[in-house]
């Protein structure tokens, strides 16, 4: 799990609010709460996990606040030297990657000629895809070309992966080369 | 009571149109007043639940605001002569109007007083009318930008709040007095009935609006009456006099 020591106190200080914190203590605000706060402090009991922004190549650190099985807030990671707790509009909003109603939550299948998606089980999807891959691969596999062993299929393409983790791109690259795929491309090209 | 009984003879003082206009005006005014109170000062916040919350109060206030604008039109359309007379009276000021105030002050505090001869409206009513007209215009004119701020420059809306407030304060002050006189003040109470039925006791009309009464008598509309309101001679058949209940 997370190997960082990011308890809440530390986090507060890191947000650059040290001076304010002190002043607040002096003023004793607990007695005289401002009117704005009528509910519990939003991130009072949230779990904080550091991540790296999934958008551009700057690699800003983000803290994800989770509570009650949902994401309640996302903000810049003050520890990360690249962004020092700052973010742009996209980084700030990654909370909605989880909360957006548009997320697909079940595997979807579209049969040939059909005009709709059908929900399917993962296992069925995996097995059917594996079958299709094998059928196409077996049918189109080229063992040798002009006397040279080439072990490839030029009938299957793999596209994308610039937003995957390194470990994922590694496995993807390995799997595709292992299958003999030559049409292997991702967003660096486009 | 040792005094002789007053006569039941009534004369028509107000047209139906005026009665309606006045009624609508009065009711909507009070409705506006009540619905505005909690907005005027948080002292009256307890009224919100009664009025259906701020939204209910706001809605009612707007409904009555429309109602409040209608009486003038009712009067003008259905009793133009009455309206014209009112206007004429308002611009007619004589010494008797000044004298009226001297006596009224005495009366209000229970001192001995005498009736100064007045025409259709006494000087007090005329003053009341003036202030009411003024405040009504103020309130209505300022209320429009408050209601539709999106169509007015901010400054107009902002001044609207001020004038609405001023109008409100003035109107309340005048209305409180007006009502006191009509409802509570016993010397004026026939006027209160009059503004609801349109008819008042002849003796009361003669006492309070002597000039007007005499004028109507001269025209043959009203019976000539004695102190106690009993006719001095038979009235003409086409008079508007009616038998009281």
């Amino acid at each position: 799990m997370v190997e960082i020591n990011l308890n809440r106190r530390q986090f507060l200080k890191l947000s650059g609010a040290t001076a304010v914190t002190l002043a607040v203590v002096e003023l004793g605000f607990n007695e005289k709460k401002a009117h704005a706060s009528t509910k519990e402090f939003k991130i009072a009991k949230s779990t904080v996990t550091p991540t790296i922004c999934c958008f551009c190549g700057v690699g800003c650190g983000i803290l994800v606040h989770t509570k009650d099985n949902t994401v309640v807030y996302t903000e810049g990671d003050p520890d990360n030297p690249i962004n020092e707790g700052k973010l742009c509009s996209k980084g700030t909003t990654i909370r909605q990657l989880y909360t957006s109603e548009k997320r697909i939550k079940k595997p979807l299948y579209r049969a040939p000629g059909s005009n709709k998606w059908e929900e399917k089980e993962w296992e069925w999807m995996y097995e059917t895809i594996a079958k299709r891959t094998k059928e196409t691969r077996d049918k189109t596999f080229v063992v040798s070309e002009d006397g040279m062993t080439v072990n490839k299929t030029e009938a299957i393409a793999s596209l994308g992966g610039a937003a995957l983790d390194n470990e994922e791109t590694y496995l993807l690259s390995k799997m595709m080369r292992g299958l003999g795929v030559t049409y292997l491309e991702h967003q660096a090209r486009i | 009571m040792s005094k002789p009984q007053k006569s039941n003879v009534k004369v028509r003082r107000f047209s139906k149109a005026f009665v309606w206009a006045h009624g609508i005006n009065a009711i909507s005014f009070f409705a506006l007043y009540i619905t505005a109170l909690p907005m005027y000062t948080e002292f009256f916040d307890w009224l919100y639940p009664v009025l259906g919350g701020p939204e209910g109060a706001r809605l009612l206030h707007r409904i009555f605001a429309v109602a409040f604008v209608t009486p003038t039109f009712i009067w003008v359309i259905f009793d133009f002569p009455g309206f014209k007379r009112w206007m004429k009276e308002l611009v007619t000021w004589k010494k008797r109007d000044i004298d009226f105030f001297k006596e009224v002050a005495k009366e209000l505090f229970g001192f001995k007083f005498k009736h100064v001869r007045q025409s259709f409206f006494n000087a007090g009513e005329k003053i009341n009318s003036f202030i009411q007209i003024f405040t009504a215009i103020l309130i209505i004119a300022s209320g429009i930008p408050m209601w539709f701020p999106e169509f007015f420059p901010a400054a107009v809306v902002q001044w609207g709040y001020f004038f609405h407030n001023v109008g409100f304060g003035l109107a309340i002050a005048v209305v409180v007095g007006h009502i006191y006189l009509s409802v509570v003040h016993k010397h004026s109470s026939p006027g209160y009935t009059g503004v609801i039925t349109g008819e008042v006791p002849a003796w009361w009309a003669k006492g309070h609006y002597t000039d007007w009464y005499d004028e109507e008598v001269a025209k043959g509309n009203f019976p000539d009456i004695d102190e106690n309101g009993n006719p001095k001679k038979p009235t003409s058949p086409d008079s508007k006099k009616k038998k009281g209940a």
Partner: protein
Amino acid sequence: MATEYVKFVDVTKCDGCRACMVACKNWNDLPAEQQDFLGSAQSHAKTTADTWNVLQYIEHENSKGKLDYLFRHSACFHCTDAACEKVCPENAISYTDFGTVVIDHEKCVGCGYCVNNCPFEVISLKEYVDKNGDKYRKAHKCTMCTDRLEEGLQPACVTTCHTGAMEFGDKAAMIKKAEERVKQIKDRYPNAMVYNPKGVGGTHTVYVLAEKPSVYGLPENPKVPTSAVLWKDYAQPLGKMMIGATTMGVIGMFISSRIINKGKQDEGGDSHE
């Protein structure tokens, strides 16, 4: 009061990324609003009940005839002398010890007085529908994340600003910084100025503007509307007094006439029944 804090916005450092807009929505859980195309990069014409700060984008031809692409984070100014607070009939708007101006939604009745009296037009009403399907309204605006201030955190918008265009700190220090910054950038922006209008007693959002306030659609000399001052400081107390006085007068008349009349047994004047 101990230290007074202000949000210092140096628009000449802003690069218009709009993180402040999203950070605000994220922290305050504000929903998105469908927006029309406005003909520029700007998303909202002005702040709304669900969008408490708006990044302005202004293409301005400067005095040298060159194009300046100006940005401004616009939000509630948190005036020291706040018109909204003055006109609120419910005392729902108040000052906190941080100098921020906040709306208590328990008290707000949605009358909109604050909306129409704010010299900066930053307050808006939001319509809600309750359980019974009835509609009601509440006024909304930036809170300067007062809930965060109470916990020792800075406002969400300031926390996320990456160019340092926004800072939150001690009022005197921030104003000094602003003044120094204006000196630095006078060559580049001859009309640069500190915007901390005195007409509203100074604000708790202090700007360094690159241009005259009017370029940003800001009033040059904003103040609590005179109408609001007359209304709240004169007309309303007077009105209350008048209601009181009239009421007292009527009661006085009633009582006095009763007493005198009782004594005189209807001797004076005509008796009317």
